[in-house]
C-alpha cells in the first residue's frame, strides 16, 4: 500500500469533482475540480497538492535554502540568472521523501497511460506566484515528470518571483503551489472563451479560436462575438464560420452560472467534441481600451494617408518597441532624402510616417507636396506609384525640370550607391563576428545597440533613397516603352526586363538559396539522411559526423545569421527557432525545390528589340535619322540597366537593414532575458510593449513599468490586430478596415506582379513562425513579405499578397523564381480559406476561386 497522505492531508489527488480546499490544490486546481464536479467535459487530471510541496520544503536541504532565500535581498540583474540556476539545481538534486515520490509515480503512471501530460502550476494565491510560469510543461515519461514537478516547486523561489512578492508586500507563506497534471488532448481547434467580452458593454461573449494547438505562436486567432441573450454570432467581415462556436458559448454561460461569475475558459475542440481545459474568474471585467496606446498620430490633419510604401518596412501592428525604434529612423530617412533633393521638407510637427490603430501609414499629401516642389516632380505619378490610381489629377501640378536638378540627382544616386555598399558590407561584417552578449555589461550592451542603430539609421536613409530611385527609373522605363508600345504591353515588358534584377546580387533569391547552397556544397549523403529523418537532436547527430558535419553546421549557421529579422527588431528570426531551419532543409531535400537557373535580362532585351524591329515605323525612323548605332536601343538598354541597378540596390539596402535588425533583435532578446531575471517584466515577450526609452532606463534600473500597464498595452495591441489592416488610402482617421475586392464572378482581383497561372491549395501565413507550415506546392497567401520570408518562396507554388506593387520585394523575387504572383489583393487573408483550392493568374492579376460558396 503506497501512502498518499501526510498528517491527514493528501499528497496527490484526482481532480474528479470530489471535495478539495483551495489551500490544498490552489486556485487553478479548484476551478478545474469545479468544472469536473458540474460534469463538464474535461481531460483526465490529477494534482500534486500543496501538502506534497510543503512536505518537500519542510526537510533539508530545501528547508535551509528557502529560509535563506527569505532573508536574501534581490540579486543585481547580472547575477539573477546564475542565482536562479543554483536554486533550480538544489531543487532538482534534493532528496525528497519516498512517500511523495511513490505517490507521484502512481498517479503519474496512470495518467501517462492515457498519453502525454501537461503540468500547470496552481498557486494558492494567484498574485503570489506571478512569474511562476503560465506556460504548461509537457512530459511523456515518469522521469521527466519528477524533474518537471521539482521545477514547478522551484518557480516561486526564483529571483523574479521573490522580487514581485516583495514589491507587492505579499507574504512568503502564500507562495505554496500545487501542480496540476492534465492529459493532453489533440485539438482540431483551441482557444479561449470570455463569457463577458472586455471590449463590449457586457452583452457579448468573446470566443477566440486557432487551428490546432494554442502554442502556435504568432498566429492571430479568429475572433467571434456571440450575443449573450440569443447566442447569435455577430457577423464580422472575413470571419469564417465554425460550427461549434454557439455550443461553446452556451457552455460558457453555464460555467459562469455554476461557478458564480464571468469566466475566462481555455478550451479545445477535439474529434470527441469540446473539452474545457481550465477556467479562471474575470474578477474585474476590464474596461474597453480601444486601439490607441498613446503612440498613434494625434488628430491627423485633413491629409491623405496610405499604408503602401511603409508596410514592408513596419509591417502589421507595430508594438511600442518596434514603433519607437523604427519610426524616428524612417521619418529621418524621408526628410533626409527630401532635403538632399532640395525639396521643401514638411515642418517637424507634421510627421510623414504616421500611426493609426497601431499600424504605420505615410502622409501621402505631404509626399505629393514635396514632389510638387521638386523640379520635374509629378504628384500624380507619386499617387500612381503608391496606390495604382490617381486620386486628384486636377490638383496635380508637376514641378518644372531643369538641368541642375538632373545633375543633382546623379550626384545623389552615386552617394546612395556608395552608402548602400558601405552599409551592406558593414552589416554582414558585424553580424559575422558573433559578438557574445550573454556576459556583456549593461553599459556595453546599450552602447553596442546604439552603434547598430547608427548603422541602421544610415541604412534606412539609403533604403528610402534607393527605393525612390528604383521607383522613378522603373516608371521611366515603362513610360519610355509606351512611346512605341501600348500601355499594357509596355508594363509587361518592364516586368520581364527587370525580373533578373537580383541574379548577380548577394541578396534576393540568391540569399533565399543560402540554405540550398549549404545543402548543395556541404551536405554529404549521411547528413542528408539525418536531415530527412524525423525527431529532434539533428544538430547533435550531424555534429557527430566528424569534419563534414562540423563544416556543414558552420555554413548553416552563417546562412541563418545572414537571413536577419523582419525590420529592425521585428519578428522572430530563423536563428531563434532552429526547428524552422531543419524543417525548411527537410523540404528542400525532398521534392519541393525550385529550378536554380538564373534568368537574366539580356535575352528578354534582345526579344524586345526583335519585337520593336518588326515595326515599320521603328525601322523607318532609324534610317531617316542616320542611326548607324541605334540610339533608341542604347537609350533603352541604359534605362533597363539603371532600373535593375536601383532595384538591386534597394534590395541590398533592405537586406542590410534586416541583418542589422536581426542583431538588434538579439540584443533586445538578451535585454529581455535580463529584465525577466530581475523581475522587471513577467516574460520575455513583454519587452515588445516597452518603448525604446523605457527599455533603456529599465536596463539601468532607472524606471519600472507595472504588469498592469504592460497588460493594458498588450490588450490594446491585440485590439489593433483584431481591427484589421488600414484602408488603401484614407483622409483623417481611417475607416474600419480594407474592403475585399471581389469580382462579380467571386474572384479576387489585384495587381499582376509576376506572370503565369497556378492552381493549388491556399496556405495563409501570418508570421515567419507560421510560414514553416507551408507545404511544397501550396499558394502562399499573406499580408506582405520581406527578404526574411524569401526561403518560403522556394517551396511555394504561387504568391498572393494583400499589399505591394511591381517593385515590392515579393514581386521581384516571384519574377526571379518564375512564380505567378498577384499583389494588392485587398482582404485576401480574410476572404480565402485555409486549404481552399484557387487558381492564381499572374497575367490578369486575378485569384480564381473554385468554390464560390466559400466567399464570405
Amino acid at each position, binding site marked *: 500500500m503506497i501512502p498518499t497522505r501526510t498528517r491527514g492531508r493528501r499528497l496527490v489527488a484526482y481532480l474528479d469533482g470530489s471535495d478539495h480546499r483551495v489551500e490544498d490544490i490552489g486556485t487553478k486546481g479548484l476551478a478545474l475540480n469545479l468544472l469536473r464536479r458540474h460534469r463538464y467535459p474535461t481531460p483526465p487530471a490529477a494534482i500534486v497538492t500543496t501538502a506534497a510541496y510543503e512536505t518537500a520544503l519542510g526537510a533539508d536541504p530545501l528547508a535551509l535554502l528557502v529560509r535563506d532565500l527569505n532573508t536574501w535581498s534581490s540579486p543585481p540583474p547580472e547575477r539573477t540568472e546564475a542565482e536562479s540556476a543554483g536554486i533550480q539545481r538544489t531543487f532538482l538534486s534534493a532528496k525528497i521523501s519516498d512517500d511523495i515520490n511513490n505517490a507521484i509515480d502512481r498517479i503519474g503512471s496512470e495518467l501517462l497511460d492515457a498519453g502525454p501530460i501537461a503540468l500547470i502550476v496552481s498557486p494558492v494565491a494567484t498574485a503570489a506566484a506571478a512569474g511562476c510560469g503560465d506556460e504548461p510543461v509537457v512530459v511523456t515519461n515518469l522521469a521527466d515528470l519528477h524533474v518537471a514537478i521539482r521545477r514547478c516547486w522551484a518557480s516561486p523561489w526564483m529571483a523574479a518571483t521573490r522580487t514581485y512578492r516583495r514589491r507587492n508586500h505579499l507574504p512568503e507563506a502564500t507562495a505554496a503551489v500545487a501542480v496540476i497534471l492534465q492529459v493532453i488532448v489533440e485539438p482540431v481547434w483551441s482557444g479561449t472563451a470570455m463569457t463577458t467580452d472586455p471590449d463590449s458593454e457586457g452583452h457579448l461573449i468573446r470566443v477566440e479560436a486557432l487551428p490546432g494547438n494554442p502554442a502556435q505562436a504568432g498566429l492571430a486567432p479568429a475572433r467571434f462575438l456571440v450575443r449573450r441573450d440569443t447566442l447569435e454570432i455577430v457577423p464580422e467581415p472575413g470571419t469564417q464560420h465554425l460550427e461549434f462556436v454557439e455550443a461553446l458559448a452556451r457552455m460558457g454561460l453555464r460555467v459562469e452560472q455554476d461557478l458564480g461569475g464571468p469566466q475566462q475558459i481555455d478550451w479545445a475542440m477535439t474529434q470527441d467534441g469540446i473539452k474545457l481545459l481550465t477556467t479562471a474568474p474575470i474578477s474585474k471585467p476590464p474596461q474597453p481600451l480601444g486601439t490607441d496606446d498613446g503612440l498613434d498620430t494625434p488628430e491627423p490633419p485633413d491629409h491623405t494617408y496610405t499604408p503602401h510604401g511603409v508596410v514592408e518596412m513596419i509591417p502589421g501592428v507595430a508594438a511600442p518597441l518596434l514603433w519607437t525604434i523604427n519610426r524616428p529612423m524612417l521619418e529621418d530617412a524621408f526628410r533626409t532624402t527630401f532635403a538632399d533633393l532640395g525639396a521643401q521638407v514638411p515642418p517637424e510637427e507634421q510627421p510623414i510616417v504616421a500611426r493609426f490603430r497601431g499600424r504605420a501609414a505615410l502622409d501621402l499629401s505631404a509626399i505629393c507636396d514635396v514632389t510638387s516642389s521638386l523640379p520635374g516632380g509629378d504628384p500624380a505619378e507619386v499617387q500612381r506609384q503608391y496606390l495604382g490610381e490617381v486620386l486628384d489629377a486636377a490638383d496635380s501640378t508637376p514641378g518644372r525640370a531643369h538641368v541642375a536638378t538632373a545633375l543633382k540627382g546623379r550626384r545623389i544616386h552615386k552617394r546612395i550607391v556608395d552608402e548602400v555598399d558601405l552599409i551592406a558590407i558593414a552589416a554582414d561584417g558585424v553580424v*559575422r563576428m558573433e*559578438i557574445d552578449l550573454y556576459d556583456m555589461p549593461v553599459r556595453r550592451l546599450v552602447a553596442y545597440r546604439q552603434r547598430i542603430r547608427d*548603422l541602421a539609421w544610415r541604412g534606412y536613409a539609403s533604403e528610402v533613397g534607393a527605393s525612390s530611385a528604383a521607383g522613378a527609373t522603373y516608371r521611366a522605363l515603362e513610360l519610355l516603352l509606351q512611346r512605341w508600345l501600348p500601355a499594357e504591353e509596355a508594363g509587361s515588358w518592364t516586368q520581364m526586363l527587370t525580373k533578373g534584377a537580383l541574379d548577380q546580387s548577394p541578396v534576393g533569391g540568391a540569399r533565399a538559396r543560402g540554405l540550398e547552397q549549404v545543402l548543395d556544397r556541404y551536405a554529404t549523403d549521411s547528413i542528408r539522411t539525418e536531415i530527412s529523418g524525423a525527431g529532434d537532436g539533428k544538430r547533435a547527430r550531424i555534429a557527430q559526423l566528424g569534419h563534414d558535419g562540423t563544416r556543414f553546421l558552420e555554413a548553416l549557421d552563417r546562412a541563418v545569421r545572414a537571413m536577419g529579422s523582419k525590420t529592425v527588431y521585428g519578428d522572430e528570426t530563423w536563428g531563434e527557432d532552429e526547428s524552422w531551419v531543419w524543417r525548411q532543409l527537410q523540404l528542400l531535400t525532398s521534392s519541393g525545390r525550385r529550378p536554380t537557373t538564373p534568368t537574366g535580362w539580356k535575352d528578354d532585351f534582345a526579344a524586345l528589340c526583335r519585337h520593336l524591329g518588326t515595326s515599320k515605323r521603328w525601322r523607318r525612323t532609324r534610317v*531617316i535619322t*542616320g*542611326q548607324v548605332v541605334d540610339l533608341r536601343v542604347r537609350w533603352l538598354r541604359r534605362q533597363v540597366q539603371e532600373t535593375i541597378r536601383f532595384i538591386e540596390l534597394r534590395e541590398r539596402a533592405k537586406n542590410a537593414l534586416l541583418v542589422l535588425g536581426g542583431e538588434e533583435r538579439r540584443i533586445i532578446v538578451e535585454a529581455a532575458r535580463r529584465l525577466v531575471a530581475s523581475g522587471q517584466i513577467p516574460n520575455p515577450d513583454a519587452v515588445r510593449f516597452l518603448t525604446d526609452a523605457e527599455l533603456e532606463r529599465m536596463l539601468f534600473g532607472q524606471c519600472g513599468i507595472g504588469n498592469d500597464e504592460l497588460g493594458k498595452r498588450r490588450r490594446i495591441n491585440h485590439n489593433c490586430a483584431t481591427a484589421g489592416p488600414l484602408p488603401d488610402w484614407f483622409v483623417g482617421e481611417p475607416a474600419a478596415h480594407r474592403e475585399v475586392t471581389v469580382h462579380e464572378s467571386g474572384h479576387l482581383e489585384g495587381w499582376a506582379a509576376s506572370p503565369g497561372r497556378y492552381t493549388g491549395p491556399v496556405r495563409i501565413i501570418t508570421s515567419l513562425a507560421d510560414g514553416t507550415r507551408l507545404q511544397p506546392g501550396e499558394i502562399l497567401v499573406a499580408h506582405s513579405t520581406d527578404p526574411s520570408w524569401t526561403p518560403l518562396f522556394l517551396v511555394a507554388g504561387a504568391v498572393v499578397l494583400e499589399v505591394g506593387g511591381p517593385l515590392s520585394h515579393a514581386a521581384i523575387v516571384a519574377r526571379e523564381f518564375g512564380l505567378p504572383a498577384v499583389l494588392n489583393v485587398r482582404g485576401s487573408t480574410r476572404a480565402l480559406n485555409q486549404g481552399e483550392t484557387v487558381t492564381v493568374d499572374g497575367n490578369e492579376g486575378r485569384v480564381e476561386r473554385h468554390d464560390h460558396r466559400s466567399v464570405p
Partner: protein
Amino acid sequence: MTLAVFFPSLMGVGILISGALLLSDWVRRLLPQGSVRRKHHVVIGTYGAIAETVDAAGYHLEEPWFLSRGLRERRTYLLLAFGLALAGVASAWIGIEFYRDPLGLFYQSPWAVGIGYGVGAALVLVALLCAFLGAAYRSSPKLVMRLVTDTSLGRIILPTEEDHEAALDNVAKE
C-alpha cells in the same frame, strides 16, 4: 530643296553621334577602373563603421592591410621618374625661354623664371623620389613607404571576397 538639305543634315548628325558613341565605348573598355578611388573610400568607411561598432561591444578589429595603398610596379616608378624629370627640366627651360623672348609677354619678367624653376624643382624632387622608390623598392625606408601607403604614389588595392573574410576574422575580444 528642303528635303535635299534637311535629311542629309539629320543623317549627318546621326552618323556623327553614332561615331562619338562608338569612340566613347572604346575608351570605356580601355579604362574600366574609373570608380576605383570611390570604391576605396567606401571600403575605408565600411571598416571604420565596423571597427566603431564592435569596439562599443568590447571587441577590437585589426586594421585590414588593404586599407593602405600598395607599391606600384618598379618600372612604373622608373618611368615616372624619367617623365617627371623631363617635365621638370622642360619647365625650367620654358621659363628661361619666356624670359629671353623679346617679343613675348614675359620678356625679362622674373616671375617667368621663378615659376619655371619652382615647378621644375618640384617635379625633379618627385622624380628623384620615384627614382629612389624604383631603385630601393620594397627596402625603401619607412618614411618613404608612408608616402606610398598614404598618397597617390601608391596603388589602390580593392579587396576580394576572400580578403574581406580574412579581415573580418581578425577580431579579438578586449
